[in-house]
């Protein structure tokens, strides 16, 4: 299996604070890869480095065999990376389908002059985008809601719409930032199913930040754990669950052994 995204010694500092500290990560193609860690571990900063919102202070980011360093976010989108946000960031005064059509921006080519002249190419392109948009709406289960303003959609639907908008840019790699935040167990089960569907049916590699351990353990194939900006562990869900460093990071020093004691007593 080839590696689609690789970071080498990726570092990002804010003043004296090292938010991301020399992180090495290799995401295999068509895998579901999770990044977990306590609050403030640097997960979202890590995402922002990959998508070009921050420029890293040191290290390399290689996507599809080419470096992403120095590229602006829009260029990175053209390379095939799309993302969603921790707190939903839809274009709230535009309709659902318009949100998706903005997502198609990188797939379309018409310019100002063509828009004014309404050339046949533009008409064809617009029609295709609209049809694709309807298909995406159906794929994420929002058929019939396309003409509603994004801000009027229910929470779960907004999350799905955000994914649909990201999918519109035809990404190879999709970065999800806490896709089940604020969802009830039933909704997050749906989301888990949906994430698997994305990978299985569309062949998209998924990199995901998530706090809900049920989701992380249920859907990921590989997990990396960040704490204070550094990667402290990496492995399969089973390996991570038993890793004392991870338990310490989440619950504090000594917690791992304490938990072990409890486990032994209860057995």
């Amino acid at each position, binding site marked *: 299996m080839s590696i689609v995204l690789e970071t080498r010694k990726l570092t990002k500092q804010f003043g004296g604070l090292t938010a991301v500290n020399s992180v090495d990560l290799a995401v295999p193609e068509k895998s579901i890869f999770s990044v977990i860690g306590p609050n403030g571990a640097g997960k979202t900063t890590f995402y922002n480095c990959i*998508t070009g*919102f921050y420029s890293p202070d040191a290290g390399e980011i290689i996507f599809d065999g080419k470096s992403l360093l120095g590229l*602006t*976010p*829009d260029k990175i*989108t*053209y390379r095939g990376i*799309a*993302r969603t*946000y921790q707190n939903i*960031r839809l*274009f*709230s*005064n*535009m*309709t*659902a*389908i*318009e949100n998706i*059509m*903005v*997502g198609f*921006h*990188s797939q*379309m080519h*018409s*310019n*100002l002059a063509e*828009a*004014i002249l*309404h050339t046949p190419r*533009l008409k064809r*392109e*617009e029609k295709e985008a*609209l049809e694709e*948009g*309807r*298909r995406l*709406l*159906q*794929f994420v*289960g929002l*058929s*019939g809601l*396309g*003409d509603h*303003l994004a801000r009027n959609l229910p929470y779960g639907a907004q999350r799905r719409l955000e994914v649909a*908008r990201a999918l519109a*840019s035809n990404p190879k790699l999709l970065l999800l930032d806490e896709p089940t935040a604020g969802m009830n167990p039933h909704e997050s089960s749906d989301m888990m199913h949906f994430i698997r*569907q994305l990978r299985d*049916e569309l062949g998209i590699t998924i990199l995901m930040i998530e706090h809900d351990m049920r989701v992380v353990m249920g859907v990921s194939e590989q997990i990396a754990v960040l704490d204070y900006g550094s990667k402290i562990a990496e492995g399969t869900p089973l390996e991570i669950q038993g890793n004392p460093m991870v338990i310490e990071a989440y619950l504090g020093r000594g917690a791992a052994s304490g938990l072990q004691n409890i486990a032994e007593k209860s057995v």
Partner: protein
Amino acid sequence: MKAYLKNAATAGIIFGIITTFLFLINFIGTAADLIGDITKSRPGSSILGLSAVMFNQLIFLGLIGIWAGARGSRKDSRLEDTWKHVLIGGALAGAVHGLIAGSLAFLVGSLNTAGVKINEYLSQILPEVIRIFLLNKTPLQGALFYLVFMTLMGMLGGLFGRGVLRSTWRKNIGARRKELWNSLTHHEKVLKIRANPLTRYVVYGLLLLFVFLMPLQIGQYWNYTVGTIGIYVLLGLGLNIVVGMAGLLDLGYVAFFAIGAYSVALLTAPTPHNLQWSFWLVLPIGIILASLTGILLGIPVLRMRGDYLAIVTLGFGEIIRILSKSVLLTPFSGGPKGVFNVGAPTLFGKPFNSDVNFVWLITLGCLLVIFVTNRLQNSRVGRAWEAMREDETVAQAMGINTLTHKLMAFAIGAAFAGLGGILFASRNQFTGPEDHSLMVSINVLSLVIVGGMGSIPGVIAGAFVLKGLPEILRQLENYRVLFFGVLLVVMMVIRPEGLIPGSRQKLELQHTDKSQAPPDTADASEGSSPS
């Protein structure tokens, strides 16, 4: 104190303050003149022993008094809306109102008799104004008159409020009106006519015919006014792209208007350069110059957002005006005096010398700009602008090059303003620094906000309200800024989205009825995944 009495007293105080304020800026006198114009009463004539001016003034003050009474007698939630309460409430509100108005009359009247020249401090309050306000009586008599007058008017207002504003037959009037409207607009026959594509052409044709014929009928003054409104429509539509669609708050928009105006002025006028080029040649040059300036301004401010952008563009607008005025550039730009004898277009050898021709030309410009805006709005570029307005960071993450799209918005907006400037200077045959003051930017921004940001019909409506109404109410000229402020505040409170807010296209279900399967089957197949 009972709540309804308190309510009445509060209303009285508020209206007392309003009346005092209106007196101090002498709006009362202006309103009396206006009423005189409407009723066509001769200034010299006398009615009920009062001169026409005084009588008209009392009509105006009476209306305020009635309003105060209607407000002051509003139903308390715990009390029945009985006639007795209404009369007491109205009377109290009126008495308080009258007390304040009377004290004012007594105060200014006494000062006037004591020989104090109030108009040295408040320029509008001439002795004549005070004499009219006091109805030719002594200060004390005037004060008592207002106390009684306002109390009566307050009671009348209370009855009016109970009998008309809050009467049972007005309940649910909004819902009933809507129902009536719906039954008219959604009637089978109406829908059939609306669905017919011919209807659109007929409506557009009639509109065009109206626009073509109207200038021939309305005379020079109104043609001039309509032309000005048209130019503001052009400016508004341009700013609508920059502010309404792309979300870039540009307060120096007048700069591009000035560039357009000066390019036509300097290239066609006999002084200061004596180039005298043809208008039709200068038209594209001016538009291109304006949009180039838009890009030039855009480059340094691209990374600024929101308030910072507003301040920088504000400065830019002023720089252009001050430069055009500067002594240093006088040999080039004509300096503070401006440029005279700006060339007019000629068509088939005939020069455009009447306002009718210019109304046609400006209307043509507006149609062109509406057409372009409409096409842009529903295109990849338009969507990118709107996405930037909503969330610039996310827009960039969607692959939108925010730098080039901002420049495009600036360039298109500036081009529209340049066109407006060219037509303005050419029609007036003059342009000078004072045509390009900050007030133009503010007017245009206000009309976009009042009309409805991002909406083409909204901008047109806004231009008519803000530029057309002051022309109709010419007496209000002195109070234009006040009028502006009040209008903006009122709009923001009762209709923050504007007169005609932009509506979103229905895209998803647009063609489904004809070309695709009916919705039922689409729902049934929802579970299956697309390929």
